[in-house]
C-alpha cells in the first residue's frame, strides 16, 4: 500500500500540469532572465525600463506563437549576451559552472574515502612491539610497587 501511495505521489508530482496560458509562459520565461541593468533581479520582478522592454518583447513573441520558450530566451541572450541568463547554460564553457562543483564533490569524496581507508589499514588493532615493551615495563614497575607495599 505504501509503495502504491508513493508511486502515485511521484506520478502526481511529475506529470504535466496541463496546457499553460500565455501569461504562464511569459512569467516562466522572464523568471529565467536577469534584468540587464539591475543586480540580481529577474526581468520578472524588475521595474527597470530595460526589464520592462524585455518583458514586452517576450510577451510579443509568446503572443505571436512563433517561438518556443527556449527560442525566445535564445533571442534575448543573442542580443544582451549570456549574462542575461539567470541560470547558466549547460553547454560550452558555461557548463563548467555546473560541472566543476560536482567534480569537486566527487574528488573530495574520493579523497576522503582513500584517507579513511588508509587510516583504517594503518590502525588494524595489532599492538606494536614498542607499545608492548612500554606496557610490560609499566606493569613490571607496578608489580614491584605492589609487592613492596
Amino acid at each position: 500500500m505504501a509503495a502504491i501511495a508513493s508511486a502515485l505521489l511521484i506520478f502526481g508530482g511529475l506529470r504535466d500540469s496541463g496546457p499553460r496560458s500565455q501569461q504562464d509562459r511569459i512569467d516562466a520565461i522572464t523568471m529565467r532572465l536577469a534584468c540587464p541593468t539591475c543586480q540580481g533581479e529577474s526581468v520578472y520582478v524588475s521595474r527597470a525600463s530595460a526589464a520592462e522592454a524585455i518583458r514586452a518583447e517576450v510577451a510579443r513573441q509568446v503572443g505571436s506563437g512563433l517561438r518556443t520558450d527556449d527560442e525566445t530566451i535564445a533571442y534575448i541572450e543573442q542580443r544582451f549576451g549570456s549574462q542575461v541568463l539567470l541560470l547558466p547554460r549547460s553547454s560550452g564553457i558555461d557548463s563548467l559552472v555546473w560541472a566543476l562543483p560536482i567534480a569537486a564533490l566527487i574528488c573530495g569524496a574520493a579523497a576522503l574515502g582513500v584517507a579513511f581507508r588508509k587510516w583504517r589499514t594503518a590502525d588494524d588493532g595489532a599492538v606494536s612491539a614498542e607499545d608492548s615493551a612500554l606496557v610490560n615495563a609499566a606493569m613490571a614497575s607496578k608489580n614491584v610497587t605492589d609487592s613492596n607495599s
Partner: protein
Amino acid sequence: MLSEKKAKRVAPIAATVVGIVLVCLLWVLVSAKPNPSDNADSPLLGQPAPAVVTTTLEDKPFDLARRKGSWVVLNFFNSTCVPCRIEHPLLLTFVQNQLSTDNPAEMYTVINDDNDSAVLAFFAENKGDWQKIRDNDGTIAVAFGVAKVPETWIIDPNGYVRLRIAGQLSEGLLDEQMSILKVQFGS
C-alpha cells in the same frame, strides 16, 4: 612511521603545485590588458540589422530596411540621461562634418523610454534637425540589445551592423570610426 614519511614527501609536492597555480593566476591578472577599443562588442556586428519599423516624431513611417544605400547612425537617447545630453554637441558636429563627405551618413535618434514632448523640447533648445524615431515599447532597444543609453550604432549601406559604441561618445570618435568604416566597406 610509513604514512608520516609519505605525508612528508607529498606535502612539498602539493604545496609546489598550489604555488604554481597561484603564480599562473597572478600572471594572467597582471598581464591582462584592457580592451583598447572604444567599440563595444555585440553578436549583431557583421549581421543584418534588426528590423526597425516605427514612426518619427512627425508621425511619418520609418523603416530601416528602406534606408539601404545610406550609412545610418542610430543614437539611442533619453532627454533625462546626462551622458546623452553631454554628447549631443558631438552629434551636431558629426552631422555637420558628414555633409561635406561623399554619401553622408543619416543620423536618427531612437527615443528610449521618454515622452515626445520632452524630446521635442530638448531638441528645440539644443538643435539637431535629424529624425527622431519612437521606440515606445522598447522593441528597437531589445532588438539591438540596448540596456542603457546612450548607445550609438552604425549600419552600412547594405543594411549590416558595423559598429556599436556603448556609452557616451568621445570627441571625434564617431567621425573617425565612420571614416574607417567607409574605407573598409565602401561609401
